[in-house]
């Protein structure tokens, strides 16, 4: 894997959400009250009256009315020919294979290309359609005065907003579902017979990674061999350097059938899969890969069970899988004889297991990151991971619907479209850059420091030649600006969670805690503010102002 699926911290997510909500709601309240003071004391009273009225409206939401509005919205979307998108989709899939060469391609590359193609097509066909629908619905209703009729009925504004969101959500669900099913069938038919066997979803159990340096002392990371991409760090061969993975919660329940033993007998156990990278300081033996040896260690008794060394096959997907049968025979170099150990009784202790990886070739290095070694439990069908990843696209489209509907309550169609599109683009493409600015990792400092550097033509890597007080003041103002940027950044959805196709493309099941849970959390986090924003905007606006 070229990314680390770290589990989502729900508590931290909720606390960040609360912080942002409190900051924004507080800001809005302060501005509203300050603005209303122009009317004297009755101003703030009106503000609070509106708040109480909002609480009443929300508490009295009728699901029946919401459903009726949602059904109408869905019908309206169909009348506006939203489903024509299927035509474009069919066209792309009819000719999609033209874009993807097939003959002689490696199986894993073939699968990746087809999966990425399907998800790219679904995402970028669905998002613009739902964006347009969501952003133009309410402004069109206001323009055509049909909204005037609706608001005279016994229906609350919050129900109109919710009804719109639900209605467009239903259309989104239909479009995504049909496309996903068609995409699945297309992949199944397009992928060659040789690659078909690799259409599975691996279910990994990841450990915690730590390192030993060449003297055998604990180290925070391995060696940097100069690779621009610092995802992996390296251990040196024929030294005491090692990478150690600590697993917990392992049990016999994770055991699965393994290939038959040499004598033909059936066996069960675990599988360890590795995907290390090789780095050679000299060519060495050209025809052979670098050798790696794994050692299983009981964390309590310190029993060490070395496994046979294997040649590292870089970027080859499933080439390096080591079976761990329940009864392991190994050579004890101290006792100088073969011994047998029970995997679940002698090696795994209270569900915990350590696996050490070493490189055996002198002056050569093996690179590794946390997801590069995992215990592979029984595979799931490809469809499982595929449809989980579709959930990501669906949730992403729902967020676009929520933002679009909220924006259309106070903006005209084109402006709402631009705003929603900007939020989508910033959330998808510029998250990394803003993260760097907020965390202070961006070279050249924050806004004040950048201005100083630009004016004085000072390189980003050179220290500012200023007094301590001036430098301190610049840093402080930048810190303040960073807090503001942080707050703004939090209002843009983090779309990186939603793109789950990378799991499926690499043959993995989509991790619930690392991908699906945060996606659901982000979607829910946007539901409340979007509904509130839409509600207040629709309630306070002058409908005649088109």
């Amino acid at each position, binding site marked *: 894997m070229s990314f680390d699926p770290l589990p989502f911290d729900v508590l931290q997510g909720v606390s960040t959400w609360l912080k942002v909500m409190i900051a924004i709601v507080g800001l809005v309240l302060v501005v509203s009250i300050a603005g209303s003071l122009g009317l004297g004391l009755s101003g703030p009273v009106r503000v609070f009256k509106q708040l109480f009225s909002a609480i009443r409206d929300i508490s009295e939401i009728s699901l029946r009315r919401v459903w009726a509005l949602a059904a109408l919205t869905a019908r309206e979307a169909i009348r506006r020919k939203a489903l024509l998108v299927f035509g474009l989709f069919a066209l792309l899939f009819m000719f999609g294979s033209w*874009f993807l060469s097939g003959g002689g391609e*490696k199986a894993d590359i073939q699968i990746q290309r087809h999966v990425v193609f399907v998800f790219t097509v679904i995402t970028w066909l669905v998002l613009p359609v739902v964006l347009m629908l969501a952003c133009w619905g309410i402004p069109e209703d206001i323009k055509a005065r049909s909204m005037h009729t609706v608001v005279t009925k016994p229906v609350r504004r919050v129900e109109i907003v919710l009804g719109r969101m639900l209605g467009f959500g239903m259309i989104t669900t239909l479009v995504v579902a049909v496309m996903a099913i068609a995409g699945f069938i297309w992949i199944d038919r397009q992928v060659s017979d040789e690659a078909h066997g690799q259409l599975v979803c691996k279910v990994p159990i990841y450990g915690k990674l730590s390192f030993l340096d060449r003297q055998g002392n604990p180290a925070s990371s391995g060696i940097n061999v100069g690779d621009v991409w610092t*995802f992996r760090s390296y251990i040196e061969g024929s030294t005491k350097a090692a990478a150690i993975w600590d697993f917990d919660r392992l049990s016999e329940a994770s055991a699965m059938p393994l290939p038959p033993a040499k004598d033909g007998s059936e066996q069960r156990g675990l599988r360890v899969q590795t995907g290390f990278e090789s780095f050679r300081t000299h060519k060495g033996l050209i025809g052979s890969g670098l050798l790696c040896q794994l050692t299983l260690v009981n964390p309590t008794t310190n029993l060490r069970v070395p496994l046979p060394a294997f040649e590292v096959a870089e970027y080859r997907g499933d080439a390096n899988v080591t079976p761990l049968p329940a009864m392991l025979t190994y050579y004890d170099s101290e006792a100088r004889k073969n011994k047998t150990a029970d995997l679940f009784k002698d090696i795994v202790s209270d569900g915990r297991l350590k696996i050490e990886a070493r490189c055996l070739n002198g002056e050569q290095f093996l690179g590794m990151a946390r997801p590069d070694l995992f215990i592979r439990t029984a595979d799931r069908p490809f469809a499982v991971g595929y449809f989980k990843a579709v959930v990501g696209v669906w949730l992403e489209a729902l967020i676009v619907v929520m933002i679009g509907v909220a924006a259309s309550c106070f903006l005209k169609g084109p402006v709402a479209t631009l705003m929603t599109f900007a939020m989508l683009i910033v959330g998808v493409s510029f998250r990394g850059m803003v993260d760097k600015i907020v965390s202070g990792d961006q070279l050249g400092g924050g806004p004040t420091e950048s201005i100083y550097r630009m004016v004085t033509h000072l390189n980003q890597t050179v220290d500012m030649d200023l007094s301590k007080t001036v430098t301190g003041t610049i840093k402080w103002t930048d810190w303040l600006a960073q807090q503001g940027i942080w707050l703004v950044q939090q209002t843009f959805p983090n779309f990186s969670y939603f793109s789950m196709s990378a799991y499926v*493309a690499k043959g993995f099941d989509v991790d619930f805690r690392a991908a699906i849970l945060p996606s659901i959390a982000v979607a829910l986090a946007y539901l409340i503010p979007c509904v509130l924003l839409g509600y207040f905007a629709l309630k306070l606006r002058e409908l005649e102002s088109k």
Partner: protein
Amino acid sequence: MNRLTSRQRKLVYLGVIVVLLVPIIILGRPASGTGSSRDQGVLAQLRTKYDLGENQLGQVDPTSSAMNLVLLGFRGIAADLLWAQADENEQTKNWAELKANVDAIIMLQPHFVRVWQFQGWNLAYNVSAAWDLVADRFFWVKEGAKFLKKGRAINEKVAQIPYEEGRVLGTKIGRADEWKYYRKFFRNDPNTELYKGGPDKDVNPKGTDNYLAAKDVYLIANDLQAKYPQSISMLDVLFRSYPYRSQLNEADALQREGHFDDASKNAWDEGYREWVEKFGQEKFFGPGQIEYHLEMQPRDVQEASAAQNTDPDEFEHWVMRMQNETRYPYWKFRSQAESAQLMVDAHKLIYDGEKLFVQGKLPQAKDMLFRGMTLYEQLFNKYPVLATDDEALEEAITAVYYWQRILKLEFKPVQAQYPLAVTYENHKGMLPQIESRFKRETGQD
């Protein structure tokens, strides 16, 4: 104030549309099926005149054309974004996405020759080097060659693309550190499931030697360069030497692999014949439009300069310079000398000696190497030109290096006098490279 009624306005619009249509039809009428210029619009005629039509540049890829049409004027932006993505994917080792990016870039810019050159090179050299196992590396070398082959079909008049393809098939496969594997894989692809032990027909349709496959595409490059005058990245004479050099390289590679039979002898004979009779007789033009060929002897130069009414010294200077640029005399001499029995014996003794060393048969290896060194010294004395050739020197000094390693293992000193002693002392600069190769091939430090 507008006094026209709605209907009148519409009629005016219609009139304007019809008037505007006339120049559009005259300018933009497409080329007709007969291709007669009378039936073509002005733009189509200009396209035909300057060979700018898609179908005149090479095979038309409908996907590429459709994509460019759909993108309207945003092709440049899309291509830029794809380049950035390709770079990112290469850095993060997402090879499948990189390949997809490269294919998409080329759909947007099918006639941008530098893109074909750069990405073909990138796949064959940089991406292949990022993989560790030889079979995987070979796969990416092939991807580079296939990519250039595709570029050749889409740009049927560009000589530079088949030239680059020839370099991947010839130099990359035949001269990389992994050349022994690559040359074998070229004939018998390591993906036995797909190619059943045979070659990958996409890069080696004839199932032949890599240098001969390279020769075929170099010949295509030469034909295109002769047929469609165009700017190439090097001297004309050098560019056109590559097919013939490939034939010589094949002979050399056969020897490097230990073939000292008729196959290598025939390859050298064929190489000599093509070098002297074909390449040596090709006409080239020098400064002041002098017409010369590389096989010219001093007397030919005198006669030609007199006939062309040019300064004989300048004529001779130019011919000699071009002969040196192409190493014409060296290859002529070498292809002739390699057929000599003395040369064949020297190669064979050294090759066998090195092989015996790897097998641990040190006394026999020492004897073979010593005899090979003796013959090589005789060759250097007999053909002094040979003593200026890097490949011959490398072979000779490697033999001395192996021989000295055996003496060291036997705890015996190296005598002051031994065959090739002077050559060895004069070219010690080659030792680091030889040591590295020794380490690689024997697994010893």
